């Protein structure tokens, strides 16, 4: 199937390259495990967290606190493993933010997508994320997650028990910690909402979801990529 077949519209402003589609193994096993475990933990933490916040009652306060703490530890451990994985596989490079094509990516979501224009940035194994994803995920990784984990750990350990005695980290009030943790929670939920929707904006409505489940996705042919890279190098 060709992209160009379905993209023949009147107001086409973008130059469309014609590529062959090919089934590609894009998300490795660990990556998918990490993604879905993290997804579950984040949703679970949000749910139990807002019960602790007093927004509703479901598990009961004591259980909610307990479950929230345990899920937090699971997420921290998962994060440690995943950081290791990112560095050993070099996958961390995927998240280096870039402004290249950022504008066209935003334009795509604002206009192009309604015209069924093709994605301005192609998804490849070497570059799975579009520039917008790169920035957002980068901020998640260096800002939001660290803030949540640090405030969460302070929340747990601003007072702690050591050898039968209560010790304190010398924090006068947990209010700023708690409030920052709450702000982070709202931002993450907003992210999840938008993220869930943007899943449907792939090649087909379910192709992104299927890829994250099976690991396989229909992408534009890798061979073409390599040619492109060579051509670009020549131009430069």
């Amino acid at each position: 199937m060709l992209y160009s077949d379905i993209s023949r519209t009147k107001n086409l402003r973008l130059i469309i390259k014609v590529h062959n589609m090919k089934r590609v193994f894009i998300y490795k096993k660990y990556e998918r495990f990490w993604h879905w475990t993290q997804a579950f933990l984040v949703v679970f933490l949000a749910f139990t967290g807002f019960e602790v916040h007093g927004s509703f009652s479901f598990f009961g306060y004591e259980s909610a606190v307990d479950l929230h703490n345990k899920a937090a530890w699971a997420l921290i451990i998962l994060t440690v493993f995943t950081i290791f994985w990112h560095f050993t596989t070099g996958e961390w490079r995927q998240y280096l933010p870039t402004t290249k094509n950022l504008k066209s990516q935003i334009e795509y979501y604002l206009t192009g997508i309604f015209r069924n224009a093709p994605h301005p940035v192609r998804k490849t194994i070497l570059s799975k994320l579009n520039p917008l994803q790169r920035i957002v995920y980068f901020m998640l990784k260096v800002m939001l997650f660290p803030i949540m984990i640090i405030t969460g750990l302070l929340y747990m350990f601003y007072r702690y028990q050591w050898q039968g005695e209560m010790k304190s980290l010398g924090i006068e009030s947990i209010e700023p910690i708690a409030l920052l943790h709450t702000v982070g929670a709202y931002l993450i939920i907003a992210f999840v909402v938008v993220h869930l929707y943007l899943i449907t904006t792939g090649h087909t409505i379910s192709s992104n979801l299927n890829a994250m489940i099976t690991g396989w996705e229909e992408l534009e042919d890798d061979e073409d990529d390599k040619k492109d890279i060579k051509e670009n190098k020549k131009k430069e």
Partner: protein
Amino acid sequence: MKNSIIFFLSVVIPLVIITFVLRDSYKENTNLEELKTQYAALHISSVDHSQHKELQKEFKNAHEITETCISCHNKRGEELLSSPHFTWEREAYIEGRGITYIGKRNLLNNFCTGIFSNEPSCNRCHAGYGWADKDFDFTNQYNVDCLACHDNSGLYDKARGGSGYPTPGIDLKTIVQSVGKPKKENCGYCHFHGGGGNNVKHGDLELALLTAPRTVDVHMGVDGANLTCVDCHTAENHVMKGRYYGLSSENTNRATCEQCHTNTPHTVYKLNEHVAKIACQTCHIPRYAKVNATKMRWDWSTATKKTEGMPYEMLDSLGNPVYSSEKGDQQWAVNAIPDYLWFNGTADHHLLSDKIDFDNLPLKINTLFGSSRDKNSRIVPVKIHTGKQPYDSEYHTILQAKLWGPHPGVGALWLDFNWELALKTGMDYVGLPYSGKWDFVESQMFLPVNHMVSPSSEALTCTDCHTRNNSRLQSIEGIYIPGKSYNATIDNLGKLLIIFSFIGALSHALFRYISYKKLKANN
């Protein structure tokens, strides 16, 4: 397949193991078993006083008994002379006031208001004999009453209006031969009856504690540890551990839960963290006055009314007086929920010579110091007793009325029912200026609740405090309580953000659907 196994072994299993290892470790760190063993041991007296030759006689008067006690316990009399049970006064440093010498001897309250001019009646509860007026000799060790605390026969009784002397006709010989370590009954004789009747003043100290089960008081319950008062309120040289902040001011020599239970008494880690800001009593005394009612309000302004020329009394369905001509209107509570406030163990007191601050009514008879920012403060449960009591409307000081008298005609309110006269007589006795103009002022007293500790199964649970509405700590400020506290701006902005995310996604989806339909139609 091989990959999945390696993946499972290397990632999932360690994750699961580490999660379990890092779980709260439920290490038993309480010493309850040791305490139970320690306090289960019966106290065996090393002395049988009934065999002492010195005690085989009829005593002519009370002072002679004390003299006999001191003839063996020859330093104890001196000890008593400097013990608050005898002096009714302590030296205390009070923030903003300096060194003071205050106590039951000279402080006022909003129950019977104070002892001045009422000594023969009030001082029935003094650990001494003969304190009838200002001339009492606090330096004479033979004025000490040993029996009030050390009678073990249960026969000892001090006379009504008798300035602390025993009731005439009681079997002093048997009583003297019974002496030993104080029992609940000894302490309760006075401390259960503060305010002029059972449980009137404290709300957590009353006669029921002599017979109540552990659901009422886990420590003193007769079917439980059956502790006596002095098990916790230990004494050194006759100075007892423990503070009543209607009189005390300093954070020293207090009887605390921690002296037995340590400050990490819970097996659940998270609960031990609470200890820094929450007093044990806050969770473990969910209610006080569990058996008999305690007085919550005393409005003196309605006293002296008569019906058909006679003083009268009205009782509620539980038998508590809600009105009496002697005392005015009164309110009672049973199974009461405490109020909560920050307290660091120091307190100030309104003195008879202090001016009333009319910008800050009700007048605080005692002020418990503490705030969320103070490291020594914890949230404690208190009984707040409100009152309406006489004051000098020109000099703005609290007035001391003469309430009790041996017979009508000496100005006593309870016999002559004349405020004018009672205040004049009282203030003449006190010796402080009195303009002769009087009115009534709203007052408050703050009484920390420390007894009637419930079994742990009845302690407060998380959501008694960690809840948006109706939190026990609803009025507590300056501390972030998860589940109760929140920042409205953050919550509102956060909710808006999520709503806008939804709206954004939905409208984007809708546009996509419409344009998809259009494109399809065009093709």
